[in-house]
């Protein structure tokens, strides 16, 4: 089985509003994919469709299952954190572990307990006594101990402070991810995930505007600190974004765009570097907030 997730013409409407507009994509195994887009762009809808939480049109295959009709089989191999702080308030830490151990055949109790031992969580603690960050720690402990083939994280760190956010992604990368697993993350805190992603997918108004691996993106996009005298020459090469940093013009170029200038030509304009995902995101999404 090559593609963990493949969509063909995936669409979802809420009444008249089109949330996802006939998108196609494939996610192979062993990748960490960032599904990134502004609010209301269709990220969460796409993931909910893949998890069999909502009906949809088009084709969607997750680990070879159709999430509409084979959700019960699918959930043996898929796990997700749909949002922060959705654990029920009455749940105790030890009960949560007992319950998941009881119903999930792929749950590794020792792993969950080992992870929890590193936190301030105590077995008798109830979710309602926890801070938001602690709830996420508990949820992550449960999810990381499940040996799932696909893990879907929808805004897993929303509203958490920076320490918890960093720790979350670090744990994910160090203790969970391996070549047999696939992780799909949506977030709009792009800066924090860009180092762990292997693939990027930008989604805007229900359509995928960019889908590429991080290497491809590094080859394709280039940021140039244009020297003062070459600004007009640089502008002629159709940068997709320009901004000014400390009085210097910084321009972003897409070398794969029709009529895009090759790397060597751009290098002549000034100092070059790989753009950050956040800058690329802002350039790509230009106009969608207007």
């Amino acid at each position, binding site marked *: 089985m090559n593609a963990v997730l493949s969509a063909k013409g995936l669409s979802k409407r809420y009444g008249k509003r089109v949330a996802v507009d006939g998108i196609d994509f494939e996610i192979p195994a062993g990748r960490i994919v960032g599904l990134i887009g502004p609010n209301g762009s269709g990220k969460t809808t796409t993931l909910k469709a893949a998890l069999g*939480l909502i009906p949809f049109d088009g084709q969607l295959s997750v680990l070879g299952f159709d999430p509409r009709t084979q959700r*019960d089989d699918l*959930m043996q191999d898929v796990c997700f*954190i749909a*949002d922060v702080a959705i654990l029920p308030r009455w749940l105790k830490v030890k009960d949560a572990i007992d*319950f998941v151990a*009881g119903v999930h055949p792929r749950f590794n109790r020792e792993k969950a307990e080992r992870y929890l031992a590193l936190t301030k969580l105590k077995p008798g603690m109830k979710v309602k006594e926890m801070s938001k960050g602690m709830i996420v720690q508990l949820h992550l402990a449960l999810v990381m101990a499940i040996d799932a083939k696909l893990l879907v994280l929808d805004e897993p760190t929303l509203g958490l402070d920076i320490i918890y956010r960093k720790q979350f992604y670090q744990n994910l990368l160090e203790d969970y991810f391996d070549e047999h697993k696939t992780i799909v993350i949506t977030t709009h805190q792009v800066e924090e995930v860009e180092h762990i992603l292997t693939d990027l997918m930008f989604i805007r108004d229900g359509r995928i505007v960019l889908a590429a691996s991080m290497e491809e993106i590094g080859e394709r996009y280039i940021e140039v600190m244009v020297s003062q005298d070459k600004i007009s020459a640089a502008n002629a090469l159709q940068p997709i974004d320009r901004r000014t940093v400390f009085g210097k013009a910084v321009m972003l170029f897409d070398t794969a765009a029709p009529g895009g200038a090759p790397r060597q030509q751009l290098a002549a304009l000034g100092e070059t570097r790989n753009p950050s995902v956040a800058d690329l995101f802002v350039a790509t999404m230009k106009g969608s907030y207007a």
Partner: protein
Amino acid sequence: MNTTTMKWLIRRELWENKGSMFWAPTIVAALLVLLVGGTMVYGMAVHGAPGIVHIDGQAMSRGAFAAAMPAEMQLKLAKLASGMYIAAGAPLFIIMSFVVFFYAVGALYDERRDRSILFWKSLPVSDGMTVLSKAVTALCVAPVISIALATVASLILLGFAMIAMAIGGIHIAGSILTQPDLYLQPLRLVGLIPVYVVWALPSIGWLLLVSCWARTKPFLWAVGVPLIALVLVKWISYTLENFSSAPLNIMPVAQEIVARLLGGIVPGIWLSFVPIPPEMHEHVRGPDMGLLFEASWMSLATAGAWIGAVLGAAMIFGAIRLRRWRDEG
């Protein structure tokens, strides 16, 4: 059906509803023992047993009364006590009706309101198992808890009563303890659970369905829809009867439907839908539990019981289908 998963799901329901399912009836049972038993003990301690007993206008001393009580009479008293003591637990079943009602109304609504449905749905547990675990909790687990507590509370109260009678000179404790009824009563209650399941199914089905469907205020929907429908039917039948001379008689049917949708969870409701055997009226000193047991099982011989049960099961199935695509929030 995966029994391990079911076991954990039911345990989860008990964790979530520990307060209403366990502590509320426990407190009621404790209060029952404390208040009724306390009154008995207090009465004995402060006033003592009555020294003079008046029977048919003739005054007798207590000792004489106890001595004059024929063995046959004592046996009758022992039979009555061992047959009736379990009725002391009745308040627990009233509490249970309320607990089960509010439990079922919230069972599939609260998980959407607090969005925890997203967590439960991230685990390999089907919608069918989840909804069934809630139905089983309402139909079987809650009654078992109530029966256990009612039995304990009734036995304690019977103990108090035996002590009180012994102080009064009536020594029938030995006789009561050898009555088979004493031990049969709790078993009879357990034996009534299947009857309860059949009669409570339409209510539980309805409440779970509304709980799963309602976007807000499931209680209002669950109670309001049947009541408004009833008013409408009343109005229609009233209007129609003004025009046609023949009475329609749809009101009794509508009333029965509403009563069974909302009242099915009250234990013993079945006795109001089946004719009570005439022997039961002959027992002046309250209903005989054995006869009550028989009459309850006889109620399952009516078509109405099973029509309701099938409709209830269909509504539970509907709730399962609804939960599959129900969005949170």
